[in-house]
């Protein structure tokens, strides 16, 4: 039984994700970059669905594409970027940065190649498809209770920090 996770969908979604991720870092207009990032996030949500993680896919769409990206677009509209489009988009050290990032990528591919024998990496799905959300909820409120509370504290600190940063006079 393998209805959703066909190779065609995997290649389609990952090519869409990578191409629009490249568009994010190359577009001059920040609004276009944000819209490309939304395309990347939605196709990643599709990949999560293929990995039998429907709850994470829903959180990805609701929180990332719906929440965080709206925040980004708000700030892009708030800071006036009309002048910025006419400036140079890449900094002076872009060559060094490119070489460093690509060598990091080579290292990662090398590690994945070498380590693929250690993990049971060619194995296919073992998780049950149903009750995913229920099991995540049980894990969050059971085994991961303390990290859950710490995450709520982190969000409180982030709210206060954002207000303090963006306020004119405290």
């Amino acid at each position, binding site marked *: 039984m393998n209805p959703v996770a066909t*190779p*065609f969908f*995997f290649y389609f979604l*990952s090519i869409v994700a*990578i191409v629009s*991720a490249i568009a*994010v*870092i190359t577009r001059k207009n*920040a609004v276009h970059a944000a819209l490309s*990032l939304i395309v*990347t*996030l939605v196709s*990643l949500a599709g*990949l999560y669905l*293929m*990995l*039998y*993680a429907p709850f*994470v896919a829903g959180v*990805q769409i609701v*929180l*990332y594409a719906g*929440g*965080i990206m709206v*925040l*980004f677009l708000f*700030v892009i509209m*708030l*800071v006036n*970027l009309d002048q*910025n489009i006419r*400036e140079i*988009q*890449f*900094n002076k*050290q872009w060559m*060094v*940065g490119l070489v*460093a990032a690509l060598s990091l*990528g080579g290292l*990662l591919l090398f590690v*994945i190649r070498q380590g*693929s024998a250690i*993990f049971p*990496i*060619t194995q*296919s799905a073992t*998780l049950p498809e149903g009750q*995913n959300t229920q099991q*995540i909820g049980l894990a*969050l409120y059971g085994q991961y209770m303390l*990290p859950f509370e710490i*995450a709520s504290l*982190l969000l409180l*600190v*982030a*709210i206060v920090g*954002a207000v303090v*940063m*963006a306020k004119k006079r405290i």
Partner: protein
Amino acid sequence: MGEITTLHYLVVAAALLIIGTIGVLTRRNVVIILMSIELILNAVNLNLVAFSRLYGLHGQVFSIFVITDAAAEAAVGLGIIIAFFRNKETVNVDEAELLRW
């Protein structure tokens, strides 16, 4: 096109991570640098969910914590961008030179 394994997902996540790193290291616009950080976090999330297919639900739970972290980081980072823009009238990182020696 054979069967899709965890290895395929790891390669996609590595590509996204490298693209995000290139964005952080080469762009001048600080809003796009924050978006590249989101790309990096998403690559990590894809790794976690891909491994959770093999090792149980822990990876998915952890990816939810990573998403929470990304929300907090975006809120504080965009607040900093607004404060920076108010002071300097620009969003280029190489013009933030107040503390530079």
